[in-house]
């Protein structure tokens, strides 16, 4: 399905009913809105693992962000965090998604944090996967070095210094396979990639720093990160966790897991499920 938001068509998919029969009542299940990584990737990466698992206990809404997958690709003037945050806010309003739990990976996590900081009434809880508050190239290069040897670190450094088409192609070939311990070519093939957006973002939009806004989050937040993530590094996630309100934040790190932890550390799926099922405000949600 698609819906028009701020003048563009956004594709979304849904799995799992919102209302379920329970004796004499229809029971409301939680809504989890999944915001994908990227930029340039689409919602399909969630359909392998976390999406279907959560659909058993919640209504799962998959959204292709503007510029991604089956949504309007729009143009580079609108490929900004501010636009994506307002897109998601309006998307929730148009469909009357009342206070969903927002689960975002990387770029999706950034959007989740900013939405929760700017529109706290819109967000019930946050799950931040492989998310950092700012992007520091040397941190990523260090992990590429460790995982792929100095050659990988050099390819990454060349790309970060000069995100040209040639350097990007080399980065895709040498560095992207190091993102996960369990690469699956089919998963990559299923993505409707917008590489122009990826390249544009890497050239122009990497200088964000959302630490101040992260401190404004007022909802319970579950943070998950892989210790072998070369893209959004564990050091970067530690920095984000330090910026989030400590009393609301619960942080789980996974050894031997890369970017987007669910593929490498399936036990993370159980943690999210527990978090989604916990009564908001109960100790189980974040203790």
């Amino acid at each position, binding site marked *: *399905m*698609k*819906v028009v938001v701020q003048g563009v*068509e956004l594709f979304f*998919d*849904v*799995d*799992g*009913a*919102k*209302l*379920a*029969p329970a*004796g*004499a*009542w*229809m029971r409301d299940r939680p809504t989890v809105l999944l915001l994908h990584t990227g930029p340039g990737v689409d919602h*399909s990466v969630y*359909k*392998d693992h976390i*999406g279907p698992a959560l*659909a058993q206990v919640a*209504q799962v809404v*998959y959204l292709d962000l503007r510029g991604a997958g089956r949504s309007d690709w729009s143009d580079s003037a609108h490929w900004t965090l501010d636009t994506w945050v307002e897109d998601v806010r309006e998307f929730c309003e*148009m*469909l*009357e*998604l009342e206070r969903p739990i927002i689960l975002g990976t990387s770029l999706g996590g950034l959007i989740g944090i900013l939405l929760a900081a700017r529109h706290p009434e819109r967000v019930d809880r946050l799950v931040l996967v492989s998310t950092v508050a700012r992007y520091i190239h040397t941190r990523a290069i260090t992990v590429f070095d460790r995982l792929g040897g100095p050659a990988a670190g050099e390819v990454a450094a060349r790309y970060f210094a000069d995100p040209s088409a040639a350097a990007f192609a080399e980065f895709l070939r040498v560095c992207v396979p190091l993102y996960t311990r369990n690469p699956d*070519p*089919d*998963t990559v*093939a*299923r993505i409707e990639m917008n590489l122009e957006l990826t390249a544009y973002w890497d050239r122009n939009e990497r200088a964000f720093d959302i630490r101040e806004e992260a401190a404004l989050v007022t909802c319970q937040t579950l943070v998950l990160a892989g210790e072998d993530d070369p893209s959004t590094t564990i050091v970067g996630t530690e920095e984000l966790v330090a910026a989030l309100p400590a009393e609301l934040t619960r942080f789980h790190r996974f050894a031997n897991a890369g970017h987007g932890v669910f593929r490498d550390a399936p036990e993370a799926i159980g943690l999210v499920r527990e978090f989604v099922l916990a009564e908001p405000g109960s100790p189980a949600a974040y203790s």
Partner: protein
Amino acid sequence: MRIAVADTRLYFDVDGAKLVPDGPWMRERPTVLLLHPGPGFDHGLFKVQLGPSLVPHAQVVYLDQRGGGRSDRSDPETLTLDRWADDVHDFCDALRIERPIVLGLGFGSLVAIRYAARHPAQPGALVLAAPVARIVPEQSLEVYEQLGGAEARAVAERYYEGMDEQAFADFLRVCFPLLSSYELTNDVIIRADWSPEVLIRWMRGESKELDLRPELGTIEVPTLVLAGEDDAWAPLASVQEVVEHLPEGALFRSFAGARHSIFRDAPESLGELRRFLEWLHAEEASL
């Protein structure tokens, strides 16, 4: 979820993803839009058996039609079969649902017929479960009497001829249980978000002049008609009249012992439905 449609907002629920991973592809599944009986009833009764049985094969969309359930009660002047039908079209248009398989039960099948006649380009196929072209009380009264004796006949008579709140209350008590051979009928009644005034308005007004025979002949999409042979709401002869007025090629199955709740009373009807979906898929693949 709810979405703005014409002058109102309609509630809908979704179960089962539209796109599913299949090797290196995302495979598109059909969309089945379910139109509940009524008017003034809601989608909940489909959540027990019909919806869940379709989810492995399709994206299932449950719609609360204008005036009922969690949709806006709407301006009473707009509670007409034309508007209910146009709502289906506008709803699909707003969500970019293409070529839906529209399945209506009882009153929902009347909406489906009117919708397909007024908007022939949109639907992919129709499933008419317990449809009638006209409301012929005498035929229904005979079945009520067979199933519930003289009292049921008398109550049903007032329902058709002198419909008011008392007649509706008596109907709920005496006749409604006769529409299903399934013992959970009471749960269904309690769980539903009723608007009896919508039903009363319909029974006293537009239903009396209903005649869908001319428009049935204009329906060109593949159509499956299902009937319960002990259905007092849509007696077999009335359903047969619908089939006679549809263009040649419409598929028709009736189920012995089944009442208005065909899908629950005759689980083999779910198998017919699956075969119809498979046939539609094969037809589409051969184009």
